[in-house]
């Protein structure tokens, strides 16, 4: 066994000189921590519909961006991290002139929207090659839920890499919900949570060096492309936070320090009434709208990300970056990175500052009325795990099968209701996402779900069985369901569903 002598050490150190960038970044991090959300919104970051039409040009490309005060070269839509926010209303037409200036093929998925899975709409089987253009065009149904949706690439095999590069943006559907007086009076802020791992040149860390089995995570957590930005809350007023977990694999367990908040929506769908919560777990793909009421001692309150263990093959708890990240991952084993990316660490994602008082606004009593779905005509079972398969070797599996791209795994009938029982027999948590139609959680491990809510992504913890109820409405065609840890999806944990 070769000992590392001093000379080798020097060589290695020189090779590691690039790490100085990260070291100095760590030290300077504090001074970047006060990103401002008060600056007027750059209009190129917002596109909203007018006269029933949302139309825009959207270009995917690698672009230089300012990420928390640091120059980075990320994958962007129209040069922005996060991507421009799109806003439309139920019944609007959407026309997106998309250009792929990435070096890889790509496409767009409209996560959570109830639109056709075919043609020029939410068609994840499309492949738009580098240099090609494609015009997406679809109508939002009159009964489209109003809420927080989003768009991101969805070309199987490249989803995690492209999302991790930064490609994600909000798609907001406005409507009656926004006209509820208390909600209308609330100050509205959007929080897109993304994590990044940059190499020495400020580019996303190569996939070969990331822990794909666990699902890649970055050490740099940005909210709207900023590190720990501030949001103001009028004393006595309401602040409406619309939060998206746009990360590839990272879970966020959110808590506003010493301050309650009230959830009013799950995955873009309103709850019946506000629910007081002290913590909010958001898996990749999930969204939540919350109201913060300015009725506490005025001051600064940190929005914290609390530790969460999403499993990983019997590995131990904190200090796991080298275990979870790859040894070859360079920065993944940087001690400085480890210390602040500890699984047991709590970090501040953003800060809420009280500002001058306004006339008191109460929480809304009633927001919507969620109907119970009728009893299912069919119950299906899905088992999530990873394992060795003869065809591809190690893969993530649904019912023992990796995604094939050709096989239709599940055939359902339009206008029917089904229960899907999803069991995680593996050693890692898997958030399960279904395209096109939202669902309700019926039970978890046989215990009835007490909170009525529409969702499009539900966490199935290791060892857990979650039963969901879903109605296939309005649209026929092929679409997919998958784990929203997108490395797991890329490694096979996805199935094709045909709605007929």
């Amino acid at each position, binding site marked *: *066994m*070769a*000992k*590392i*002598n001093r000379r080798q*050490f020097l*060589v*290695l*150190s020189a090779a*590691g000189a690039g*790490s100085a960038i990260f070291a100095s970044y760590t030290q300077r991090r504090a001074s970047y921590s006060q990103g401002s959300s008060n600056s007027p919104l750059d209009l190129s970051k917002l596109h909203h519909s007018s006269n029933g039409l949302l139309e825009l040009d959207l270009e995917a490309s690698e672009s230089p961006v300012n990420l928390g005060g640091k120059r980075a070269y990320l994958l962007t839509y129209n040069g922005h991290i996060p991507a421009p926010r799109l806003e439309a209303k139920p019944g609007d037409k959407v026309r997106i002139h998309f250009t792929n200036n990435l070096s890889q093929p790509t496409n767009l998925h409209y996560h959570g929207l109830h639109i056709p899975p*075919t043609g020029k709409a939410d*068609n994840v*089987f*499309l*492949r*738009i*090659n580098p240099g090609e253009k*494609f015009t997406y065009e679809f109508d939002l149904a009159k009964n489209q839920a109003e809420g927080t949706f989003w768009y991101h690439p969805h*070309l*199987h*095999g490249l989803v995690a890499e492209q999302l991790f590069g930064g490609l994600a943006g909000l798609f907001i559907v406005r409507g009656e919900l926004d006209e509820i007086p208390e909600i209308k009076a609330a100050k509205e802020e959007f929080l897109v949570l993304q994590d990044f791992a940059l190499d*020495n040149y400020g580019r996303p860390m*190569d*996939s*070969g060096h990331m822990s*794909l*089995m*666990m699902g890649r995570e970055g050490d740099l957590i940005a909210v709207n492309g900023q590190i720990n930005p501030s949001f103001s809350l009028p004393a006595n007023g309401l602040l409406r936070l619309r939060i998206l977990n746009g990360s590839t694999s990272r879970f966020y367990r959110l808590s506003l320090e010493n301050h309650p908040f009230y959830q009013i929506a799950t995955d873009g769908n309103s709850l019946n009434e506000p629910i007081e919560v002290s913590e909010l777990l958001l898996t990749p793909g999930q969204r939540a709208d919350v109201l913060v009421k300015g009725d506490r001692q005025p001051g600064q309150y940190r929005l914290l990300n609390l530790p969460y263990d999403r499993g990983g*093959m*019997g*590995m*131990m*708890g904190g*200090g*796991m*970056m*080298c*275990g*979870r*990240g*790859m*040894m*070859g*991952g*360079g920065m993944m*084993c940087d001690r400085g990175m480890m210390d602040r990316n500890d699984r047991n660490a709590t970090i501040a994602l953003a800060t809420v500052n009280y500002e001058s008082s306004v006339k008191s606004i109460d929480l809304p009593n009633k927001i919507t009325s969620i109907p119970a779905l009728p009893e299912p005509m069919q119950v299906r079972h899905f088992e999530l795990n*990873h*394992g*060795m398969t003869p*065809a*591809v*070797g*190690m893969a993530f599996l649904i019912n023992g099968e*990796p995604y094939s*791209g*050709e096989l239709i795994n599940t055939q359902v009938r339009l206008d029917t209701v089904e229960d899907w029982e999803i069991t995680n027999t*593996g*050693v890692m948590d898997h958030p399960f996402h279904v395209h096109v139609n939202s669902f309700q959680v019926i039970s978890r491990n046989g215990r009835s779900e007490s909170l009525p809510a529409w969702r499009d992504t539900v966490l199935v913890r*290791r060892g857990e069985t979650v039963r969901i109820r879903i109605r296939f409405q309005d649209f026929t065609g092929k679409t997919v369901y998958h784990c929203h840890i997108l490395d797991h999806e890329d490694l096979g944990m996805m199935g094709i569903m045909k709605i007929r």
Partner: protein
Amino acid sequence: MSKLLPKIIFTSIAIASAIGGAIYFSWTIAENQTASNQNSIAKDTKTASFVSVWDEETEPSYSGTKEMTVYRSPNCGCCGVWIEHAEKHGFKVKDIKTEQIEAIKQKYNVPPQLAACHTTIIDGYAIEGHIPADDIKRFLKEKPKLAGLAVPGMPLGTPGMEARDMKQPFQVLAFNNKGEVQIFKEYQSY
């Protein structure tokens, strides 16, 4: 081991590897398809029989201990495939499924940051994760004053983690009972 500077070396070797690490990792995406409504992106899924690059015997003269004990979680699928790899290379494996795997790792001084999915005990050494069996033989021949070897995490392409043509670069690390770490062997391509 007195020359080990664990934290600094730990950082530096990792960075060196990141820089030197050419990418032996690519996704298979079928060529010659256009932005039409096609639906066979993963068409190239191979149905060929499963042959591992790790099957080849590179330490035929090994005459040391062959009995090993593997501790793994009952739900760990890839651990079982690694056991098959070890058996192919002549080891006799006692396979123990336990939920108490963390206690085993602690008992044998596996540094937490080097943890992987299963822990093998042989000749009093802890062999952590998806380590090529022949590296264990090389290590045991030397009988070093160390606590064991580790391949942290679950790199795709390692024995028991073979996945189509994905081969992530990885290092086999040696550690002592103080948690100090050095490179035993590096695999950039394989």
